[in-house]
Protein backbone atom coordinates (compact mmCIF):
# COMPACT_ATOMS: atom_id res chain seq x y z
CA UNK A 1 0.00 0.00 0.00
CA UNK A 2 1.16 3.56 -0.69
CA UNK A 3 2.40 5.97 1.92
CA UNK A 4 -0.63 8.21 2.06
CA UNK A 5 -4.21 7.06 2.39
CA UNK A 6 -6.32 7.06 -0.73
CA UNK A 7 -8.89 9.80 -0.55
CA UNK A 8 -12.26 8.29 -1.37
CA UNK A 9 -14.61 10.51 -3.33
CA UNK A 10 -17.96 11.76 -2.05
CA UNK A 11 -19.96 9.31 -4.11
CA UNK A 12 -18.31 6.38 -2.34
CA UNK A 13 -20.47 7.26 0.69
CA UNK A 14 -23.67 7.59 -1.32
CA UNK A 15 -25.67 4.41 -0.60
CA UNK A 16 -27.21 4.11 -4.11
CA UNK A 17 -23.66 3.83 -5.48
CA UNK A 18 -23.74 0.23 -4.23
CA UNK A 19 -26.98 -0.70 -6.02
CA UNK A 20 -26.70 -1.20 -9.76
CA UNK A 21 -29.31 1.24 -11.03
CA UNK A 22 -32.12 -0.17 -13.14
CA UNK A 23 -32.64 3.04 -15.13
CA UNK A 24 -30.06 2.90 -17.92
CA UNK A 25 -29.22 6.59 -18.10
CA UNK A 26 -28.50 6.62 -14.37
CA UNK A 27 -26.63 3.33 -14.57
CA UNK A 28 -24.31 4.71 -17.23
CA UNK A 29 -23.27 7.57 -14.96
CA UNK A 30 -22.86 5.17 -12.06
CA UNK A 31 -20.66 2.79 -14.03
CA UNK A 32 -18.52 5.70 -15.22
CA UNK A 33 -17.90 6.60 -11.60
CA UNK A 34 -17.04 3.02 -10.63
CA UNK A 35 -14.61 2.83 -13.53
CA UNK A 36 -12.92 6.04 -12.48
CA UNK A 37 -12.71 4.88 -8.88
CA UNK A 38 -11.12 1.58 -9.89
CA UNK A 39 -8.59 3.26 -12.17
CA UNK A 40 -7.54 5.91 -9.70
CA UNK A 41 -7.32 3.53 -6.76
CA UNK A 42 -5.19 1.03 -8.63
CA UNK A 43 -2.97 3.71 -10.11
CA UNK A 44 -2.43 5.38 -6.73
CA UNK A 45 -1.35 2.17 -5.07
CA UNK A 46 0.42 0.99 -8.21
CA UNK A 47 -1.59 -2.23 -8.29
CA UNK A 48 -1.49 -3.64 -11.78
CA UNK A 49 -3.99 -6.44 -11.34
CA UNK A 50 -7.43 -6.39 -9.80
CA UNK A 51 -8.21 -9.68 -8.11
CA UNK A 52 -11.99 -9.72 -8.05
CA UNK A 53 -12.57 -11.53 -4.75
CA UNK A 54 -9.86 -9.51 -2.97
CA UNK A 55 -10.71 -6.02 -4.11
CA UNK A 56 -11.48 -3.80 -1.09
CA UNK A 57 -13.53 -1.34 -3.14
CA UNK A 58 -16.67 -3.45 -3.31
CA UNK A 59 -17.54 -2.84 0.32
CA UNK A 60 -17.88 0.37 2.29
CA UNK A 61 -18.30 -0.62 5.92
CA UNK A 62 -18.71 2.97 7.07
CA UNK A 63 -22.10 3.15 5.35
CA UNK A 64 -22.87 -0.55 5.60
CA UNK A 65 -23.16 -1.15 1.87
CA UNK A 66 -21.56 -3.66 -0.43
CA UNK A 67 -21.91 -4.95 -3.95
CA UNK A 68 -23.05 -8.51 -4.53
CA UNK A 69 -21.34 -10.88 -6.99
CA UNK A 70 -23.72 -10.00 -9.82
CA UNK A 71 -23.17 -6.28 -9.30
CA UNK A 72 -19.41 -6.79 -9.38
CA UNK A 73 -19.73 -8.71 -12.64
CA UNK A 74 -21.63 -5.82 -14.21
CA UNK A 75 -18.94 -3.37 -13.15
CA UNK A 76 -16.09 -5.59 -14.34
CA UNK A 77 -17.79 -6.21 -17.67
CA UNK A 78 -18.12 -2.46 -18.14
CA UNK A 79 -14.46 -1.90 -17.20
CA UNK A 80 -13.27 -4.46 -19.73
CA UNK A 81 -15.63 -3.23 -22.41
CA UNK A 82 -14.34 0.32 -21.95
CA UNK A 83 -10.84 -0.88 -22.77
CA UNK A 84 -9.46 -0.12 -19.31
CA UNK A 85 -9.37 -3.72 -18.14
CA UNK A 86 -8.14 -6.99 -19.56
CA UNK A 87 -8.77 -10.45 -18.10
CA UNK A 88 -5.63 -12.43 -17.40
CA UNK A 89 -7.93 -15.47 -17.19
CA UNK A 90 -10.88 -14.81 -19.52
CA UNK A 91 -12.57 -18.15 -18.82
CA UNK A 92 -12.75 -17.83 -15.04
CA UNK A 93 -12.43 -14.03 -14.83
CA UNK A 94 -10.80 -13.66 -11.44
CA UNK A 95 -7.78 -11.48 -12.33
CA UNK A 96 -8.02 -8.33 -14.38
CA UNK A 97 -5.10 -6.25 -15.62
CA UNK A 98 -5.83 -2.55 -15.08
CA UNK A 99 -5.07 -0.30 -18.03
CA UNK A 100 -5.03 3.26 -16.71
CA UNK A 101 -4.67 4.46 -20.24
CA UNK A 102 -6.04 2.47 -23.12
CA UNK A 103 -3.26 1.24 -25.41
CA UNK A 104 -5.07 2.82 -28.40
CA UNK A 105 -5.12 6.18 -26.61
CA UNK A 106 -1.43 5.95 -25.78
CA UNK A 107 -0.60 4.87 -29.33
CA UNK A 108 -2.13 7.96 -30.87
CA UNK A 109 -0.65 10.21 -28.15
CA UNK A 110 2.82 8.78 -28.79
CA UNK A 111 2.60 9.19 -32.54
CA UNK A 112 1.29 12.73 -32.25
CA UNK A 113 4.16 13.57 -29.94
CA UNK A 114 6.63 11.94 -32.31
CA UNK A 115 5.30 14.06 -35.17
CA UNK A 116 5.34 17.36 -33.30
CA UNK A 117 8.77 16.75 -31.79
CA UNK A 118 10.46 15.75 -35.03
CA UNK A 119 10.93 12.09 -34.23
CA UNK A 120 9.41 10.93 -37.47
CA UNK A 121 12.18 9.33 -39.46
CA UNK A 122 14.35 9.01 -36.40
CA UNK A 123 14.73 6.74 -33.42
CA UNK A 124 14.12 6.81 -29.69
CA UNK A 125 14.25 4.18 -26.97
CA UNK A 126 11.46 2.75 -24.88
CA UNK A 127 13.11 4.30 -21.85
CA UNK A 128 13.03 7.74 -23.41
CA UNK A 129 9.34 7.33 -24.08
CA UNK A 130 8.38 6.85 -20.46
CA UNK A 131 11.16 8.73 -18.71
CA UNK A 132 12.91 10.98 -21.21
CA UNK A 133 13.20 14.74 -20.89
CA UNK A 134 11.05 15.42 -23.90
CA UNK A 135 7.98 13.61 -22.61
CA UNK A 136 7.15 15.90 -19.73
CA UNK A 137 3.39 16.14 -19.30
CA UNK A 138 2.63 13.51 -21.93
CA UNK A 139 0.06 10.84 -21.14
CA UNK A 140 2.65 8.11 -21.60
CA UNK A 141 5.17 9.64 -19.23
CA UNK A 142 5.84 7.15 -16.46
CA UNK A 143 3.77 4.50 -18.20
CA UNK A 144 4.29 0.85 -17.50
CA UNK A 145 6.66 -0.68 -20.07
CA UNK A 146 4.25 -3.49 -20.79
CA UNK A 147 1.51 -0.97 -21.58
CA UNK A 148 3.89 1.08 -23.74
CA UNK A 149 4.79 -1.99 -25.74
CA UNK A 150 1.13 -2.71 -26.40
CA UNK A 151 0.71 0.84 -27.64
CA UNK A 152 3.80 0.55 -29.84
CA UNK A 153 2.53 -2.76 -31.21
CA UNK A 154 -0.58 -0.93 -32.33
CA UNK A 155 1.54 1.70 -34.07
CA UNK A 156 3.60 -1.04 -35.69
CA UNK A 157 0.45 -2.64 -37.04
CA UNK A 158 -0.55 0.72 -38.43
CA UNK A 159 2.81 1.00 -40.13
CA UNK A 160 3.71 4.06 -38.10
CA UNK A 161 6.80 2.60 -36.47
CA UNK A 162 9.07 -0.43 -36.17
CA UNK A 163 10.63 -1.79 -33.02
CA UNK A 164 14.10 -3.24 -32.74
CA UNK A 165 16.00 -4.84 -29.92
CA UNK A 166 18.54 -3.03 -27.78
CA UNK A 167 20.95 -4.36 -25.18
CA UNK A 168 18.33 -4.23 -22.48
CA UNK A 169 14.56 -4.05 -22.88
CA UNK A 170 14.60 -0.35 -21.94
CA UNK A 171 17.05 0.27 -24.73
CA UNK A 172 14.79 -1.28 -27.33
CA UNK A 173 14.35 1.22 -30.04
CA UNK A 174 11.47 2.61 -31.99
CA UNK A 175 11.74 4.17 -35.40
CA UNK A 176 8.81 6.34 -36.37
CA UNK A 177 7.54 6.80 -39.89
Amino acid sequence: MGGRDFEFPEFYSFPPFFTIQPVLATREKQLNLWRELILRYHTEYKIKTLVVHDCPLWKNTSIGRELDTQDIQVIMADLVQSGHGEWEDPTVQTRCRILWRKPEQLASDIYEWAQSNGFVGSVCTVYELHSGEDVNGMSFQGADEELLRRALEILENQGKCTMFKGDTSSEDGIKFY
Partner: protein
Amino acid sequence: MLQDMGMTSALTKSDHRGDYYTTLARQLADFLRPKLKQAGGLLTLTDVYCFFNRARGSNLISPEDLLQAVSCMKELNLGMSLRDFPSGLRVVQDESFNDEKMAKKLLVLAEHSPEECLTALDASRALHISALLANEQLLSAERMGYICRDVTLEGTRFFPNRFNDFKWIS
Protein backbone atom coordinates in the same frame (compact mmCIF):
# COMPACT_ATOMS: atom_id res chain seq x y z
CA MET B 1 -59.56 -9.20 -10.95
CA LEU B 2 -62.30 -9.81 -8.43
CA GLN B 3 -64.19 -12.22 -10.68
CA ASP B 4 -63.86 -15.10 -8.28
CA MET B 5 -65.89 -13.16 -5.76
CA GLY B 6 -68.86 -13.97 -7.95
CA MET B 7 -69.72 -10.41 -8.84
CA THR B 8 -71.96 -10.17 -11.86
CA SER B 9 -74.03 -7.35 -13.11
CA ALA B 10 -77.68 -7.28 -12.17
CA LEU B 11 -78.64 -5.27 -15.23
CA THR B 12 -79.12 -6.66 -18.68
CA LYS B 13 -76.83 -4.90 -20.99
CA SER B 14 -76.85 -7.14 -24.03
CA ASP B 15 -79.28 -5.03 -26.02
CA HIS B 16 -77.88 -1.58 -25.47
CA ARG B 17 -74.26 -2.38 -24.80
CA GLY B 18 -72.76 0.85 -26.05
CA ASP B 19 -75.22 3.04 -24.20
CA TYR B 20 -74.83 1.07 -21.04
CA TYR B 21 -71.09 1.60 -20.83
CA THR B 22 -71.33 5.22 -21.87
CA THR B 23 -73.89 5.89 -19.16
CA LEU B 24 -71.89 3.96 -16.61
CA ALA B 25 -68.76 5.86 -17.59
CA ARG B 26 -70.48 9.17 -16.97
CA GLN B 27 -71.88 7.96 -13.66
CA LEU B 28 -68.46 6.80 -12.60
CA ALA B 29 -66.83 10.04 -13.61
CA ASP B 30 -69.28 12.14 -11.63
CA PHE B 31 -68.85 9.87 -8.64
CA LEU B 32 -65.07 9.83 -8.86
CA ARG B 33 -64.37 13.48 -9.45
CA PRO B 34 -64.24 14.53 -5.78
CA LYS B 35 -62.56 11.30 -4.72
CA LEU B 36 -59.84 11.68 -7.32
CA LYS B 37 -59.16 15.21 -6.20
CA GLN B 38 -58.90 14.07 -2.61
CA ALA B 39 -56.52 11.28 -3.57
CA GLY B 40 -54.21 13.57 -5.50
CA GLY B 41 -55.31 12.57 -8.98
CA LEU B 42 -54.87 8.79 -9.04
CA LEU B 43 -56.98 5.88 -7.85
CA THR B 44 -56.36 2.21 -8.47
CA LEU B 45 -59.04 0.35 -10.40
CA THR B 46 -59.53 -1.87 -7.38
CA ASP B 47 -60.22 1.12 -5.16
CA VAL B 48 -62.65 2.52 -7.72
CA TYR B 49 -64.45 -0.82 -7.85
CA CYS B 50 -64.83 -0.93 -4.08
CA PHE B 51 -65.84 2.70 -3.64
CA PHE B 52 -68.40 2.62 -6.41
CA ASN B 53 -70.05 -0.65 -5.49
CA ARG B 54 -70.11 0.19 -1.82
CA ALA B 55 -71.89 3.43 -2.66
CA ARG B 56 -74.34 1.67 -4.96
CA GLY B 57 -75.35 -0.92 -2.41
CA SER B 58 -77.28 -2.91 -5.00
CA ASN B 59 -77.07 -3.32 -8.79
CA LEU B 60 -73.39 -3.80 -8.33
CA ILE B 61 -71.14 -3.62 -11.35
CA SER B 62 -68.73 -6.37 -12.28
CA PRO B 63 -65.00 -5.87 -12.69
CA GLU B 64 -65.43 -6.34 -16.44
CA ASP B 65 -68.09 -3.65 -16.55
CA LEU B 66 -65.84 -1.30 -14.64
CA LEU B 67 -62.96 -1.90 -17.02
CA GLN B 68 -65.15 -1.36 -20.08
CA ALA B 69 -66.66 1.81 -18.68
CA VAL B 70 -63.33 3.26 -17.61
CA SER B 71 -61.83 2.38 -21.00
CA CYS B 72 -64.24 4.71 -22.80
CA MET B 73 -63.78 7.64 -20.45
CA LYS B 74 -61.02 9.20 -22.47
CA GLU B 75 -62.95 9.49 -25.72
CA LEU B 76 -65.98 10.77 -23.83
CA ASN B 77 -63.86 13.65 -22.52
CA LEU B 78 -64.85 13.08 -18.92
CA GLY B 79 -61.68 14.61 -17.50
CA MET B 80 -60.17 11.31 -16.45
CA SER B 81 -58.97 8.10 -18.05
CA LEU B 82 -57.58 4.62 -17.63
CA ARG B 83 -53.84 4.30 -17.28
CA ASP B 84 -51.64 1.21 -17.28
CA PHE B 85 -48.32 1.34 -15.49
CA PRO B 86 -45.38 -0.81 -16.62
CA SER B 87 -45.76 -2.89 -13.47
CA GLY B 88 -49.27 -3.87 -14.56
CA LEU B 89 -51.04 -1.64 -12.06
CA ARG B 90 -54.13 -0.01 -13.55
CA VAL B 91 -55.47 3.29 -12.34
CA VAL B 92 -57.99 5.96 -13.13
CA GLN B 93 -56.05 9.16 -13.62
CA ASP B 94 -57.31 12.72 -13.56
CA GLU B 95 -56.34 14.45 -16.81
CA SER B 96 -54.67 17.25 -14.87
CA PHE B 97 -52.33 14.82 -13.17
CA ASN B 98 -48.77 15.47 -14.17
CA ASP B 99 -46.08 12.84 -13.72
CA GLU B 100 -43.26 15.32 -13.80
CA LYS B 101 -44.89 17.48 -11.15
CA MET B 102 -45.31 14.44 -8.94
CA ALA B 103 -41.70 13.40 -9.56
CA LYS B 104 -40.43 16.83 -8.54
CA LYS B 105 -42.61 16.69 -5.45
CA LEU B 106 -41.08 13.36 -4.49
CA LEU B 107 -37.59 14.71 -5.10
CA VAL B 108 -38.23 17.61 -2.74
CA LEU B 109 -39.66 15.22 -0.15
CA ALA B 110 -36.54 13.09 -0.35
CA GLU B 111 -34.21 16.07 -0.14
CA HIS B 112 -35.94 17.34 3.00
CA SER B 113 -36.19 14.04 4.81
CA PRO B 114 -33.73 13.39 7.69
CA GLU B 115 -31.72 10.73 5.86
CA GLU B 116 -32.25 12.27 2.44
CA CYS B 117 -34.25 9.27 1.25
CA LEU B 118 -37.80 7.98 0.92
CA THR B 119 -39.45 4.61 1.18
CA ALA B 120 -42.81 3.91 -0.47
CA LEU B 121 -44.32 4.10 3.00
CA ASP B 122 -42.81 7.55 3.63
CA ALA B 123 -44.15 8.78 0.31
CA SER B 124 -47.61 7.35 0.93
CA ARG B 125 -47.83 9.08 4.31
CA ALA B 126 -46.65 12.39 2.94
CA LEU B 127 -48.95 12.35 -0.08
CA HIS B 128 -51.93 10.68 1.60
CA ILE B 129 -52.16 7.96 -1.00
CA SER B 130 -51.85 4.19 -0.78
CA ALA B 131 -48.36 2.67 -0.55
CA LEU B 132 -49.04 0.86 -3.80
CA LEU B 133 -49.68 4.09 -5.67
CA ALA B 134 -46.82 5.82 -3.89
CA ASN B 135 -44.48 3.08 -5.03
CA GLU B 136 -45.71 3.44 -8.59
CA GLN B 137 -45.01 7.17 -8.47
CA LEU B 138 -41.55 6.58 -7.06
CA LEU B 139 -40.80 4.19 -9.93
CA SER B 140 -42.06 6.78 -12.38
CA ALA B 141 -39.85 9.48 -10.85
CA GLU B 142 -36.92 7.06 -11.00
CA ARG B 143 -37.52 6.41 -14.71
CA MET B 144 -37.48 10.16 -15.28
CA GLY B 145 -34.10 10.39 -13.56
CA TYR B 146 -35.13 12.48 -10.56
CA ILE B 147 -34.36 9.83 -7.98
CA CYS B 148 -32.28 6.67 -7.70
CA ARG B 149 -32.53 3.59 -5.55
CA ASP B 150 -30.69 2.00 -2.66
CA VAL B 151 -31.57 -1.68 -2.21
CA THR B 152 -30.75 -3.46 1.03
CA LEU B 153 -32.21 -6.34 3.01
CA GLU B 154 -34.37 -3.78 4.80
CA GLY B 155 -36.01 -2.81 1.53
CA THR B 156 -35.75 -0.17 -1.17
CA ARG B 157 -35.10 3.49 -0.46
CA PHE B 158 -35.06 6.33 -2.97
CA PHE B 159 -32.47 9.10 -2.90
CA PRO B 160 -32.20 12.25 -5.00
CA ASN B 161 -30.33 11.29 -8.17
CA ARG B 162 -26.95 12.78 -7.39
CA PHE B 163 -25.26 10.68 -10.05
CA ASN B 164 -25.90 13.61 -12.35
CA ASP B 165 -23.76 15.91 -10.23
CA PHE B 166 -20.91 13.85 -8.85
CA LYS B 167 -17.53 14.92 -10.08
CA TRP B 168 -14.22 13.69 -8.81
CA ILE B 169 -12.41 16.38 -6.85
CA SER B 170 -8.75 15.48 -6.78
